[in-house]
Structure formats: C-alpha cells, structure tokens
C-alpha cells in the first residue's frame, strides 16, 4: 500500500484538501464560530483533520484502482436504479447486520466475533462522543441561578437537560469509560487469540496485527486513567494523565489512514459487493462450459474481463473464447486435461 504514496496523486490530493476544509468549515459552523469550541481539545482537532485528510486521500486513491472503480461505479448504478427501494432496504439491513453488528465474523469464529464486536462498538461509540465534542458541536452548560442542572447544547441549540448527580449524568459523563471497558475486553479477547491460535501466530505481523490492539488498549487505559484520577485522586495527576492520553489518541488518529484501521472505512464496500451480486443474479448467471453449471453472474465475468484487461492480463484465446469463461472447477479440469495430453503424447506418464 505504501507504493501508493510514492508519487502524489493529484485527484486524491485535491479531494483530501476539500474534505479537510469541509471539516474546518463544519467546526466553525457547528461551534457557532468557535464560541462553543473547547480550546483544550485543539490538539485533538488537529489530529482529526490530519486523519480526515489521510483517509480521504487514501480512499480516493483506492477508488481509482480498476477493480474498485468498477465496483463503485456498478454499485452506484445498481443502487440508483428502478430497484432503488428494495436495494436500499437490503443495504440498510445488511448495514446493521454486517457493518454495525459484524455478524459475518461469527461465521469465521464465535469468540472472534464477540471480541471484534466489543472493540468495534466501543470504538464507534467513542467516535460518536468525541468527534462532536472536539468539533464543538456539543457542549454542556449551567444556567445562572441553577448550578445543579446541566443543559446539553447541540450546535448551540439547547436540547435535553439532567440533574447533577443523577443517573443520567453518571451515564453521560462516563460514556467514554464504558467505551474503554468494551474496547479493553474486546482487545484482550483478540490478543488471547493471537497468542494461542497456531495459524495466527504463523501469519501475524507486529505492525498490522499487534500494534492496533496495543494502541486501542493504550487509549482505553489512559482514558480510564483520567477518570480514575478525578474520581479517586482528586485531579492530582490530571495534567500527566491528560497529556499521555492525548499523545496516544493523536498517534492513533495520525495512523488511522495508513494502518489496519483503514479497514473500518473499506468495510462498507461489502454492501456494494452484495448489491453487485444480487443485481447480477437478476440479470443472468454464467454457465461454465465444462461443468455445465451456473457458477457466477454473467455481469461479474464480463466486468472482470474488462478489469483484467486494464490491469494488463489477457486470458482470451485464439478461438475467441476466454479462459475466464470457465468456472474454477472448469479451469482446474482444463489444466489437468492439458497436462494429461502432454504426458500422453510423451508416451510416459511417469518418470
């Protein structure tokens, strides 16, 4: 993936710039011209803007790859067709099932799903809390004359309120604590797998597999440290805790576009792949000339021929047919038959 960054991609660069400026604009608008912006979170804001730039850049580069581009194009084309309503509903259903709940992972392994679900839920909730706070979209206010009721301001508008010391206050102000606990348990489950599963041990790398888990745990524990400090230590170590936490979070934000966490943004493409298959099946299946059975959608086979051609592969044959018309089993049989003929012609199957 690093080779993508060797040369600057102009289109991506421009898109990334636009995205970054859009974030700044949203901060300005949402915080009522920085009126509600919490200056203590400035470093986080810078980190976030960098992350947005990086993600947008990489996403844009990614979408320019022939196969991704085609998938993107087709997904949009199929979604915004006369089948929009059923496809949208289907995609929404799958969004809840496979993106938010990641149910597909359960078919890989149950414990793995539990671990991943806890981590993902913790992270997503934490994003949902911290981003509006960092951008100054949400803040809490006390009103003169009543120093026991907190008012939640969203984009500067007053929404709900709650009493200090109430259950609601406890839950709200400890939101990140709950996230940290989820993430820590999830990451611990995933770490245990990485320590005991022989297959994972053989194939894992530090940067791709361990570093993300370590970072998540570091964020969670330092975040919990802040809570611990003001709950039990009366804020004596606040400065230290806050700085340490900020450092790990910003590291995380900066690394977000490059490392494993980018998959969070790629994962949505799964919905496109599903749509592509559904609409493709509606349009007609490809039948393997060898097995005489349906094996994929004809759209997929046709598109793949275009994609491979763009990538510099040419599986077309002299007789006008194409090796890619064969199903996987057909291809294997074709290879075996070709090998058989060569062996037979040589007069010897062995030796």
């Amino acid at each position, binding site marked *: 993936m690093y080779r993508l960054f060797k040369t600057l991609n102009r289109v991506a660069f421009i898109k990334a710039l636009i995205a970054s400026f859009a974030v700044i604009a949203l901060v300005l608008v949402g915080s009522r011209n920085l009126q509600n912006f919490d200056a203590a979170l400035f470093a986080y804001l810078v980190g976030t803007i960098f992350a947005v730039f990086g993600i947008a850049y990489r996403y844009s580069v990614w979408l320019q790859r022939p196969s991704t581009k085609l998938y993107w194009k087709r997904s949009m084309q199929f979604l915004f067709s006369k089948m929009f309503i059923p496809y949208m509903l289907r995609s929404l259903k799958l969004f809840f099932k496979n993106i938010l709940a990641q149910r597909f992972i359960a078919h890989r392994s149950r414990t793995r799903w539990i671990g991943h679900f806890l981590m993902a839920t913790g992270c997503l909730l934490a994003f949902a809390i911290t981003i509006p706070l960092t951008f100054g979209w949400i803040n809490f206010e006390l009103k003169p004359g009543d120093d026991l009721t907190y008012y939640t301001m969203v984009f500067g508008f007053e929404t709900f309120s709650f009493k200090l010391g109430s259950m609601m206050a406890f839950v709200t102000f400890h939101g990140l604590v709950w996230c940290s606990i989820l993430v820590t348990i999830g990451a611990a489950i995933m770490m245990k797998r990485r320590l005991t599963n022989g297959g994972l041990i*053989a194939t894992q790398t530090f940067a791709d597999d361990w570093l993300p888990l370590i970072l998540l745990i570091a964020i969670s524990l330092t975040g919990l440290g802040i809570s611990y400090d003001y709950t039990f230590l009366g804020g004596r170590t606040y400065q230290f805790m806050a700085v340490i936490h900020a450092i790990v979070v910003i590291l995380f934000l900066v690394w977000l576009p490059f490392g494993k966490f980018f998959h969070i943004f790629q994962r949505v*493409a799964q919905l496109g792949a599903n749509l592509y298959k559904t609409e493709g099946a509606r349009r007609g299946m490809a039948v393997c000339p060898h097995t005489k059975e349906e094996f994929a959608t004809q759209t997929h086979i046709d598109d*793949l021929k275009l994609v*491979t051609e763009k990538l510099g592969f*040419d*599986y077309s044959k002299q007789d006008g047919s194409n*090796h890619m018309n064969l199903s996987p*089993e057909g291809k294997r049989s074709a290879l075996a038959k070709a090998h058989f003929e060569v062996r037979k012609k040589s007069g010897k199957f062995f030796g």
Partner: protein
Amino acid sequence: MSETKYNQEMAFFVDMQRCIGCHACEMACAECETNGQESMIHVNYVDRAVSTQTTVQVCMHCEDPTCANVCPADAIHQDDFGVVHSADTSRCIGCSNCVLACPFGVPKKMEEAELMMKCNMCYDRTSAGKKPMCATVCPSQALYYGTKEEIEKMRPDSVPVNSFLFGKQEVNTKVNIMMPKGTHQLIIE
C-alpha cells in the same frame, strides 16, 4: 512476529497424473492451523462419466498474482518468499473477484463469512521448517515438497515447469508442475 524458518531451498511440485483422487490432501489441509478446519486444496474428477482422472490443485503462488491484482480491497498479500497469502480478514469484502479471476481456479469464497480463503502453502508449517500437510500425506506423491535436486533424482525423465499459457496470457508461478523432459511451458488451450 515469530522468527521464520521458511526454507527457500524447498519447493512445491505437482503431478496430477499421479493423483488417485483419494482426498487425503483435502482432509489433511483442513488440519492446517491457518485455515481452521476449512480445506483449501481442490480435488475433483475431470470427467467422471468417462474416466477416473482426478486433478488436484494447490495455489500456484504466481509471480504476478492475478488474484491480488483484481482484489478491490488490497487484501491479498505476497510475502518476500513469494508466498501469496490468504485474504487479509480485516480487508476482504467477499466480492469473489479473485475466485473468478484466478486462472487455476484456486481461491474459495466462504459465503457466510464473506471471506475469501486460499492455500498459503501451509504457512504455519512451512514457516516452521515443516512440509505442507497435503504434500506430507499425499499417498501418491502427486504433491511433493522438497528440493529441486531431490525431485530431479527421483523422477529423472520429468522436469519441473513453472510457466503456463492460458490463451494469450503467460503466468509464471512459484509452484512447479512435473512435465516430460524438454517441456518448458504448459499450454492450456
């Protein structure tokens, strides 16, 4: 992470005319720890109505893998030894591009798990200096894992070939196929 003992002297050799279709490789493949009881190797009859010919297919580990090229999610990674790994579980979106594009018909889509899986030459074993499961158990040695010198000595009239021509496309691979002496390429018409 772990220190690798992958031995680059060792190579994989396939000769499907020796295959007796017993499926021992398939059963053993499932025991490989990287694929958790899923079998990645393919054994199938070529045309059972007329012959008992079977074929056996492991991943050929192409030098320029079509599967990795067509992957929209950058999920297929080729390591420094030339081993083309199974899809990165965090990236794979289960689109099946690789399944349909691979000229050898190797990758498998696990439908429920929305994941492609394929042979990674038993990386848990080969990276520990052991032989892959399939080639270890293969009772006909249609699958052989060893050095080039060993196979040349054992099968003096055959030669390892790692170049294939599918239509107009030449594909070069890490895994070899055993062919009659004097052959340089297997042409699939």
